């Protein structure tokens, strides 16, 4: 059929291009439902289950749902191991956050500079974040090994330590804590770099130029202009980092299993030991739930501070 005849032929009224799936009130909930289901099924329900486990007598040996009130919490607090674990968790979390974010800021500032191979450096810096935690931690296990530590070897070769008194990174209580904090900060560092890089690029150049003209030096620009502007982004990083660190199990478990003498035991590893290895699910859940009020308070404080800054 020619184009003219086609054009002259009576046309059927065009069907509406909009169907049910094009309506915002249908499509919106449809897209959000998977996320809500994910949170409800994989976060909400396990949380409620943990709440009930913690006030029950449930164990693998005797899967009983008998309600015991706060007995499990009292028994958990009675243990010196738990009290030490709680303190360790706070030290571990706060130290790893401070070091990770500080290194992140320094890294981001360096990566903002122009230098050959900057793109490659940016890609490589994300590696600690991208490498599976188990593999990365096993590499650190060898670096801290009592006999074959490359760190000790370097220190001995540089004449900085006496070979007869090599530091036992995973064997001395203070050094073991430093070791687990170091590994976790190393893992957090790329996250910090990415967050700070994103923050730095959002700082208007004219504001910085004006400050420079007004005589603001490096430190003043950093602490009185850049940091206040990117504070909301840092707060988000801090919330994520705190939650990741507070709930982390893998670094400590793979490096020290909480030893020596529980000096690196954190809530995650203790809960795993009691709840899974020993099968005492109720007490394991009670230990886990001690994470919750701390995290809740931390998140509320951070979000409040964030809102104040936005106002």
């Amino acid at each position, binding site marked *: 059929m020619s184009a003219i005849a086609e054009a002259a032929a009576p046309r059927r009224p065009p069907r509406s291009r909009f169907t049910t799936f094009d309506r915002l009130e249908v499509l919106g909930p449809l897209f959000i439902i998977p996320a809500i289901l994910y949170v409800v099924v994989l976060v909400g329900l396990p949380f409620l289950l943990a709440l009930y486990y913690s006030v029950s007598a449930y164990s693998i040996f005797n899967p009983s749902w008998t309600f015991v009130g706060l007995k499990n919490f009292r028994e958990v607090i009675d243990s010196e191991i738990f009290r030490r674990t709680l303190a360790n968790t706070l030290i571990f979390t706060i130290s790893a956050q401070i070091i990770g974010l500080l290194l992140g800021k320094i890294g981001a500032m360096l990566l903002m500079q122009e230098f050959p191979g900057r793109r490659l450096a940016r890609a490589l810096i994300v590696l600690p974040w991208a490498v599976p935690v188990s593999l990365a931690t096993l590499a650190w296990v060898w670096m801290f090994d009592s006999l074959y530590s490359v760190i000790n070897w370097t220190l001995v070769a540089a004449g900085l330590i006496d070979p007869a008194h090599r530091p036992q990174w995973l064997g001395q209580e203070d050094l073991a804590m430093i070791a687990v904090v170091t590994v976790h900060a190393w893992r957090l560092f790329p996250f910090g770099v990415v967050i700070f890089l994103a923050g730095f690029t959002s700082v208007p150049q004219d504001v910085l130029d004006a400050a420079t003209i007004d005589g603001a030096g490096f430190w003043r620009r950093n602490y009185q202009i850049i940091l206040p502007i990117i504070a909301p982004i840092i707060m988000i990083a801090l919330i994520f980092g705190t939650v990741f660190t507070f709930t982390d199990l893998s670094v400590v478990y793979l490096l020290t299993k909480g030893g*020596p003498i529980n000096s690196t035991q954190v809530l995650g590893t203790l809960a795993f030991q009691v709840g899974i290895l020993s099968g005492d699910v109720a007490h394991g859940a009670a230990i886990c739930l001690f994470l919750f009020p701390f995290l809740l308070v931390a998140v509320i404080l951070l979000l409040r501070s964030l809102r104040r800054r936005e106002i």
Partner: protein
Amino acid sequence: MRSEREISTSAVTRRGFLKRVGATAGTAALASAVSLPFVSTALAQVKTLKILQWSHFVPQYDKWFDGFAAEWGKKNGVTVTVDHIPHLELPARAAAEVSAGAGHDIFAFNGSGGPHLYEKHVADLGSLVSEVEKKHGKVHQIGRQIAYNEDTKVWSALPAYYISFPGLYRKDLWDEIGMKPDTWEDIHVGGAKLKAKGAPIGIALGHSVDPNLSYRSMLWSYGASECDQTGKRVTINSKETLEVVKLVRAIYKDAMEPEVLSWDDASNNRYLASGRGSWIHNPISAYRSIQKATPELADKIYVWKTPAGPIRRLACGAPNSYVVWRFARNKDTAIEFLRYWTDNWVAAFEASTGYNHPLFENLVPKPMPILSNDPTSHPADKLQVLETADEWHATYGYPGPAGPASDEVADNFIVVDMMAKAATDKATPEEAVAWAQKEIELIYKKWSAA
């Protein structure tokens, strides 16, 4: 060349895509629903058996076991799958399988925890154990500890084997000081002399499995234990324990290096292999590795019984057992396989190069293969002392039965930390023992109520 119109009609639109995907998914679902009865009937005719066990420290044992299971499956028309995972992952895997009510038919437990904790989730293997006892002799006491519940009279597992904990020592070095590491006192005195010569002894003091076994061995040899014979009363706070804690403190300061605080289960093997160590408390896997890597060093390493104390000579062996889950699809097949495996125990023992120790009296008649004459060792009777290992081994919970409480004490490394606290002067021996009593009491109290 296609016209513009043709192109436009063949382009993928969102609506078209959704329709096609929907139709395809619907057809696939319908097809599988229609064919399900036929497929499931066909599947039901093929018997399967799924086994999960740890990746053995002697890799050739796994190789033998896989072949053995496959051959048995071929003979009996059963498709056998054997999965191996690292031993430290077993508890989490067991918990996951029980929660899901699905997984393997046979599950092998290694170390603390297992048969007693999971008693309500496993089949009672009492009749299989009786049958094996009739055929291969009485089960050793350590076998009862591993798998039998004295209160409920249930055999929640088939006692599979235990891993012995002898002393591995450098004979050349100990000969130089004119001693043999036969008692814990020898370990202290001889170890101190050898440390002065640059060859300390090593017992781990960190959070790992080996020290759990070593320090229990030491406690029992001095007449101390974490609980009494009933397995209900905590007895760690005793003058015998105090004596042991003081001895460990002395051994740590005089005969060991601080690195033992950071050791994992492989560290003492590496230590002996490095040529520095003069004595370690470990299964013969350390010796076997050195045989392969440094044969001349292996020739200098000898094996002797666990050191004796003033009361007895007793080591804590690492327990191994097989359970059959209650939810297992093929319980009878699983039990049939375990029966066959037990009947071929000598081959299993040989494949493990004498590492797995029998738990029934006549499973491996004496003189035992390999242990009595190991052609790879010089002299060939180097391992002969292990033929009597059943006389000087018990396991967690001794002198009482093992159970969830004794397992949790081990999982939380309380005995090890008691020793480490005193050894590193973080607490006096008295304070360390009192601390352990309190922590162990909390655990026993809560499990007694379970």
